């Protein structure tokens, strides 16, 4: 046991789907459990953070961290694992880019609290109480983690060595990543452990994409019966495949759902939303300004659409208030 590499798996601001993705590698997980010494996995095993604190720095070979950072508790755990680990892998869209919960950055903390503790129709809060980081009950002080103004991707809080995107990452990439670590065959630090090219490159519908798309109308996927074989964009349905890293195995495309961008930007691009916005503007076709505005006005929440998984790492990061 003493010689096996120590591995920690942890969730921060995530939904549990990424932990589930680890379980989805099925019997390979048993081999991993055999080859490593799992020292932390809150979803599956009962280890305490005290155990981690008692370790020496760098004692853990690899920490696989999913979820983003929105409160002081998550920040503390992220920093603790960073200190104790030789390598940190940001696992899943939330850890890599902020993920869907990162869309909260289009809302202020104040608006979130007002809605959740005051304005939502199901709330009964006659005394107008809001959660506080510190409160006194029966002479005792109770504490809660501090809720931050924004959602942060993992690399905005600690240094990250490798990235594995996806919501959640597909099993074959999880297995590749784990074996790369165990066999010591890792690419240079900072790499994303997924193909570098855009999803369109491997999408089976790409060959149906005309050389020039000219959209006079934009439809949402639930409003139409999408043709299961032809390119979504050519059908006027927004698909982020052109600005999104491939490697997902086209899991959405194959069930007739357009790409929403959970693999984030391709190598060399910072803001995949901006890239998609430019591409989108260029395929809109209209006779005059009025018509152009009419087509664009039909896009419901373009910012949310383009930054569904990546708002916290976008150039402008979040709402100014």
């Amino acid at each position, binding site marked *: 046991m003493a010689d096996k590499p120590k591995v920690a798996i942890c969730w921060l601001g995530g939904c549990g789907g990424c932990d589930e993705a680890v379980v989805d590698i099925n019997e390979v997980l048993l081999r991993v459990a055999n080859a490593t010494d799992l020292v932390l996995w809150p979803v599956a095993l009962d280890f305490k953070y005290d155990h981690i604190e008692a370790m020496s*720095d*760098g004692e853990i070979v690899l920490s696989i961290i999913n979820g983003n*950072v929105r409160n002081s508790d998550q*920040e503390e755990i992220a*920093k603790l694992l*960073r*200190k*104790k*680990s*030789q390598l940190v892998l940001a696992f899943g869209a939330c850890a890599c880019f902020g993920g869907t919960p990162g869309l909260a950055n*289009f809302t202020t903390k104040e608006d979130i609290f007002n809605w959740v503790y005051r304005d939502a129709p199901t709330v009964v809060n006659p005394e107008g109480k809001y959660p506080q980081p510190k409160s006194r009950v029966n002479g005792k002080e109770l504490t809660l983690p501090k809720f*931050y*103004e*924004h959602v*942060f991707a993992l*690399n*905005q*809080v*600690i*240094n990250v*060595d490798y990235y594995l995107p996806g919501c959640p990452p597909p099993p074959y990439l999880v297995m590749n990543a784990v074996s790369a670590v165990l066999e010591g065959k890792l690419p240079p630090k900072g790499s994303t452990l997924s193909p570098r090219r855009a999803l369109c490159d491997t999408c089976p519908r790409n060959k149906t994409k005309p050389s020039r798309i000219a959209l006079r109308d934009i439809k949402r996927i639930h409003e139409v019966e999408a043709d299961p074989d032809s390119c979504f964009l050519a059908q006027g349905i927004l698909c982020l495949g052109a600005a999104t890293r491939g490697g997902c195995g086209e899991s959405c495309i194959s069930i007739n759902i357009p790409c929403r961008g959970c693999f984030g930007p391709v190598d060399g691009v*910072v*803001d995949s*939303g*901006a*890239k998609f*916005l*430019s591409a*989108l*503007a*260029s395929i*809109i076709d209209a006779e005059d*300004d009025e018509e*152009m*505005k009419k087509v*664009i006005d039909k*896009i419901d*929440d*373009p*910012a*949310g659409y*383009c930054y569904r998984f990546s708002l916290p790492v*976008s*150039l*402008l*990061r*979040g*709402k*100014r*208030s």
Partner: protein
Amino acid sequence: MSSYEPKLVCFSCKFGWGYLNTEEALAKQIKNWVPIICSGKVDSSHILTAFRQGADGVLILGCRGGDCHYQDGNYEAKKRVYLLHKVLESYGIESERLRIELSIDPEGNKIPQLVKEMSDRIAKLGPVKKVGEPAKAVAVV
């Protein structure tokens, strides 16, 4: 408020704006001026980067409708700006802070004037609000 001077970035197409003048002469009169070949070249990421780096406004000057040297670069820029207005609003950045003007001005004398006009309008809005800074990253062990 009175001493506040908005930081503006101006992109202008060399085919329609100031081609009879020297860039040196115009650059003296326009701060943060980026003469480019075709307004269609201004990508969304250039505009967002300008705001990221502290611009209070971005002005794009392209050629008149139908006059684009590359057929429709100016029209591309216009669609991009209209779409970006919506995106900027989601970030809490007023759409007036991004403007496109399609016209022609061989001497380029109108450029400083248009920058000044936009700057005056933006001064009324004040600076772009800040977004909270992320926590400091800890060192790798």
